[in-house]
């Protein structure tokens, strides 16, 4: 951009400083307090890892973490397979209708609460007992849409003539997929899977509505929500720090594999 006066430049740096302070102070305070020795959640009294140790003995949190892992792994696996096939199928066509496009985009823009109540009504109407399996069914819906959009972005620059060349040279459809298409889209598939995994680990509202009664299928976000409603404890700070570290690591990795899908 054009040259700016020193006063303008200072103002711009001030804006950046203030915005970054606003974005980072709340989570930094949270992380710092998770290492706080004292039981008081907000007053600093010395460094300690004891709240992390106490997490390891909290059976409610451990079982919720296990549930979350099951839901995230299974729904990611299904969504990665279906979403990748969908992306290839769509991009293979030279033209497709607006209806198809809308159907694929809908899970990403539909409000969580709407999908949540829709699935709750649906499952109870068909008399399906709810639990981890219904959360998985629900999570695949939005996860497959995100995987599909990441893989499609990669396929936009894909030269389909090499697929035809491979077929002309006598390769079967499966060999062509394995040796030609897959190597090209592999980074996007992994990036999509990591994104799906993180979305599933963090998802609260839909899981909350489709988990059914009882505590057996409580996921980590549901557990965190219940704990937060009771108030602040140093244990939540520690748990929050771990969950945050996991999401940020997975998404940073996903980003590096596949540039250009920030913020989706």
């Amino acid at each position, binding site marked *: 951009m054009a040259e700016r006066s020193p006063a303008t430049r200072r103002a*711009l740096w001030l804006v950046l400083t203030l915005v970054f302070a606003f974005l980072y102070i709340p989570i930094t305070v949270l992380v710092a307090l998770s290492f706080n020795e004292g039981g008081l959640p907000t007053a600093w009294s010395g460094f300690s890892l004891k709240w992390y140790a106490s997490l390891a003995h909290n059976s409610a949190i451990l079982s919720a973490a296990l549930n979350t892992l099951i839901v995230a792994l299974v729904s990611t696996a299904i969504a990665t397979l*279906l979403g990748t096939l*969908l992306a290839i199928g769509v991009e*293979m*066509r030279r033209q497709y209708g607006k209806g198809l496009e809308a159907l694929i985009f809908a899970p990403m823009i539909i409000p969580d609460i709407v999908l949540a109540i*829709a*699935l709750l009504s649906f499952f109870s109407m068909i008399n399906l007992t709810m639990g981890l399996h219904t959360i998985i069914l629900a999570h695949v819906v939005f996860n497959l849409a995100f995987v*599909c959009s990441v893989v499609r972005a990669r396929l936009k620059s894909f030269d389909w003539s090499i697929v035809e060349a491979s077929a002309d040279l006598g390769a079967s459809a499966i060999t062509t997929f394995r040796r030609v298409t897959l190597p090209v889209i592999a980074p996007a598939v992994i990036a999509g899977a990591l994104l799906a995994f993180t979305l599933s680990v963090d998802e609260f509202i839909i899981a909350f509505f489709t988990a059914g009664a009882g505590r057996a299928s409580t996921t980590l976000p549901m557990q965190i929500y219940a704990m937060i409603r009771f108030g*602040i404890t140093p244990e939540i700070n520690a748990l929050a720090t771990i969950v945050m570290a996991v999401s940020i690591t997975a998404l940073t990795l996903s980003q590096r594999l596949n540039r250009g899908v920030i913020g989706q």
Partner: protein
Amino acid sequence: MTRPSRSSLLMAPALVWLTALMVVPCALVLALAFFRRGIYGGIDYTFTLENFGLVFDPLYAGIFLKSARIAGTATLIAVVVGYAAAYAIAAAPRRWQPVFLFFAVLPFWSNYLIRTYAWIVLLNREGLITQLLRWLGYTGEPPSMLYTEGAVIAGLVYNYLPFVILACYAPLSRLNPELAEASRDLGASAATTFRRVILPLTVPGIAAGAVFVFVLSIGNFVTPALLGGGRFQMIGNLVYDQFLTANDWPFGAALAMALIAIMLLVLMAQALAANRAAGRSAQTGGADG
């Protein structure tokens, strides 16, 4: 196998999944809105429009207005702050821009509940802000900041600001610097240049960011529940109550339909704004929308 039929085969599993677990359930919930609530909860399958009438009942219409006001305020603040931040990032040295952008989006990648919880830690009566005030010499009662409308708005802005920065940065970074120079060479002040040249060309980014914040805020139930306190209600909380506590699913479904209608209106407005901006940018031959 021909290409179209192979394509259909590849798409089939995902499309079946989306139809069975999104289209059908959503259609079902829309249909629910036209039935009566059964005497003991449940659903009485007789056709009625009562649920929609109830949406316009002053009590509930008031909650809609309040939700729209809160979502609107959060949107306005997020757009002003987010645009300023995006502008500052786009004005920074080229090699620093991706770094700033990355760190602006990073908080967005952590759990929504946790980002909201961070504000409880900050705003509670013994939180950082109260302690800061004490340190500055304040001795009175700790101010009550948590469980207020302001706390809800702060939480919404905090959660969605990164997206606005991202949405506004895209058109700002593509802006042709010669346009601003030409405007200044022709004698326009910096303010006029911003208002007449830069701002109109970046409307699509602003619109996308604003729609995102508004749509996610107006249907939100987590932030009002956590930062607004137990009795604080927005439409999202109302829908939640109908399904999980009051057991009036048909009314809950009607509320959800109203929510979707508001969303669609907002999205249409955005499409309109984007179209007009595209027309304008074609005229000026400037950055594409």
